[in-house]
């Protein structure tokens, strides 16, 4: 019996050895990973443009800018045919962005504020996104992290070859986009007061495209898109006030004609709403971010003027 048991033990040990030992696997060499194509992102020989971006935006503010075409770049809901930007537009456009957006905020609120709040990633596209019904899209933002700037090939600033007054449209739209998206990041970090949401809830509509920018002030909005929802109302108002300056806002209010709009807004109501929006924004900037909005406005507007006129 004991002999039998010894046999058994021996057999079990042998079988076990066979089972576990026979299948040798190659160990993985981590250095092989270097062969994986595209690991770590696209690479190319750096040009003067790449160096400029690195020195001016990436190193100081940790903002990365991609201007080379990438089919797999996430462009949010854009499905239109696009083309990459012209190289000669990259540095002038980004330089203008720096003057009109980065420098004024840093001057008013300091570098730590800006570095903490800024979107970290810009993707530049040459053409606008042509949509249905003759609409075009000029900018898109993705969750406070990434801003997609379109229509770069049209965005000329003063000093570029062939610049003329009609080109201000594109540059202003781009400044507007960036300030719009940056304001979104601000209120997504600390929300604006409920009072702002209570100003004109019944006038907010996803059918904002039914209205024109010319009609919008009569209902107390700076633009038609501001009617989209409270968040957009808030950031559109900020962006328009910053880009166009305080005098523009006063002129806008002064230009509202007598009478009642289709949606029942009187001239007095429209003016009162725009004034309330202005004061809520000024207070919000002061209380939440310790920024003097009017001073910021002066800086942004004079930068816009310097870039365009």
């Amino acid at each position, binding site marked *: 019996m004991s002999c039998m048991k010894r046999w058994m033990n021996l*057999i079990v040990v042998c079988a076990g050895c*066979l089972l576990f030992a*026979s299948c040798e696997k190659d160990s993985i060499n981590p250095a092989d990973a270097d062969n994986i*194509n595209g690991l770590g992102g696209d690479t190319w020989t750096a040009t003067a443009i790449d160096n400029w971006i690195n020195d001016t935006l990436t190193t100081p503010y940790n903002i990365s800018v991609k201007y080379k075409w990438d089919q797999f770049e996430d462009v949010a809901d854009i499905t239109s045919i696009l083309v990459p930007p012209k190289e000669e537009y990259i540095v002038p456009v980004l330089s203008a962005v720096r003057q009109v957006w980065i420098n004024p905020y840093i001057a008013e609120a300091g570098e730590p504020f800006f570095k903490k709040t800024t979107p970290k990633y810009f993707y530049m596209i040459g053409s606008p996104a042509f949509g249905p019904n003759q609409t075009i899209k000029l900018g898109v933002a993705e969750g406070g992290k990434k801003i997609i700037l379109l229509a770069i090939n049209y965005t000329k600033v003063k000093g570029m070859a062939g610049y003329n007054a009609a080109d201000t449209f594109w540059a202003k739209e781009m400044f507007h986009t960036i300030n719009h998206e940056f304001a979104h990041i601000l209120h997504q970090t600390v929300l604006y007061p409920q009072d702002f949401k209570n100003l004109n809830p019944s006038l907010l509509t996803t059918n904002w495209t039914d209205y024109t920018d010319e009609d919008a002030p009569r209902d107390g909005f700076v633009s038609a898109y501001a009617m989209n929802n409270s968040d957009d109302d808030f950031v559109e108002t900020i962006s328009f006030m910053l880009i166009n300056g305080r005098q523009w806002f006063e002129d806008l209010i002064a230009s509202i004609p007598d009478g009642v709009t289709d949606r029942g807004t009187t001239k007095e109501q429209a003016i009162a709403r725009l004034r309330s929006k202005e004061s809520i924004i000024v207070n919000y900037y002061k209380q939440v971010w310790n920024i003097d909005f009017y001073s910021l406005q002066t800086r942004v507007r004079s930068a816009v003027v310097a870039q365009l006129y």
Partner: protein
Amino acid sequence: MTKYLLLFFVVAVFLSACKKNEDHVFDQTPDERINQALQNYQSQLSGAQSGWNAVLYPKGGGAYFFYLKFNDANRVQMVSDFDSASAVTVKESSYRLKALQQPSLIFDTYSYIHVLSDPDASVNGGTLGAGLLSDFEFYFNDSTSADTIKLTGRVNGSKMILTKANAEQATSYTSGQFNINLVKENFSKILEYFKRLTIGGIGYDVIIDPLNKTVIFNWTDAQGSIHTLTTTFYYTLNGIGFGEPVINGGTVITEFTGLSWSSGTNTINLTAGGGPATITGVIKPLVLDTEAPRRWWLKVKTNDEYWVTIDGFHVNGVDDAFNIKQIPNYSFMVFWPAFGTSGATTYDLAGFITEDSTGLALNFGAAYRAPNFTADGRVTFSLLGTLGTVPPEAQAAYDATSAKFAQAGGYYLIQTSDITYDMVAVSDARSWISWFYPF
């Protein structure tokens, strides 16, 4: 018991004999192979000292020539035959090779190649939002060889073929010597609509459409059968090349080169189909589509539609010979079959469309009796009268145009595409109108 144990032992041995198959189909990993492939394409592209001649066939039609010179630092220089400026101004932009689903070549900042893809219709005359349906991201086809690289567009599937250029071509293309107007200049010296190419005694009618980069060849072969070939064309240093060759027995016409005008004989001398050839003006085509006039007329008559021209008559080498574009607020001219009835006569109208405060208006035009379609393939018009009141500023243009329609002998109709016809005067083939179908 021992039996079972032995069985267990045997089974254990059997199961544990795990042999790994080390015979891979390839002896390198996929990553190593893709890197190798990209490296090979890179050295092929940038290794060509004199660069590449490239022809791009966008999905949207036509053919476009590019001269491309790649370096090994992601830069590419190019000229293109898109317009006369892009042909003589070298533009540098960036490119990169990347493993997408296949090894791919991406022109990743804007240059002439993107002009064709630009969704802004005002850039390339294409459709809004789509351009000319071209590509700027390509994958390498399997059939790529040392001196030829074949590419396919990743979005629209456009085709591009690169062939190695020689040093002489490189110098010419990069020093502003690419003149895309060469062919046009020579052809415009022939005043007749019909251009007859003759190679070794065989005639071919050639109709070039520079706007759509297409050309139509008509010829009769040795057996007397009629052939028509519509193909794309592109400009080259010395002439034009064709997307698809004309093959007539032993004659293969792939390009026209060395064009020169001989004023003594009113002939273009050139090289085509492997030998000397001539192009002369003729007043009647080799092959006449005798049903074309009626087809042209019925196409719009059926649904009460009309044909449109902007330039009006081209006469003796002059576009808009009667200055109808000078008529105040002029938009375009229409030919509208069975436009109305006067007494018992139904008439066709050659109407002038002007733009006034309310929009487009048809305020005056020349009325013609129902056209006469002859058995030999002509259409003749006979003037009935004037509809509306012709403004004094338009009188001269109106008179000349309305009389020209009614000219003796009438017109041939040449169908140049599904939606375009050219109406050519039978008498001398030196007057014509290009009609397009706007619906």
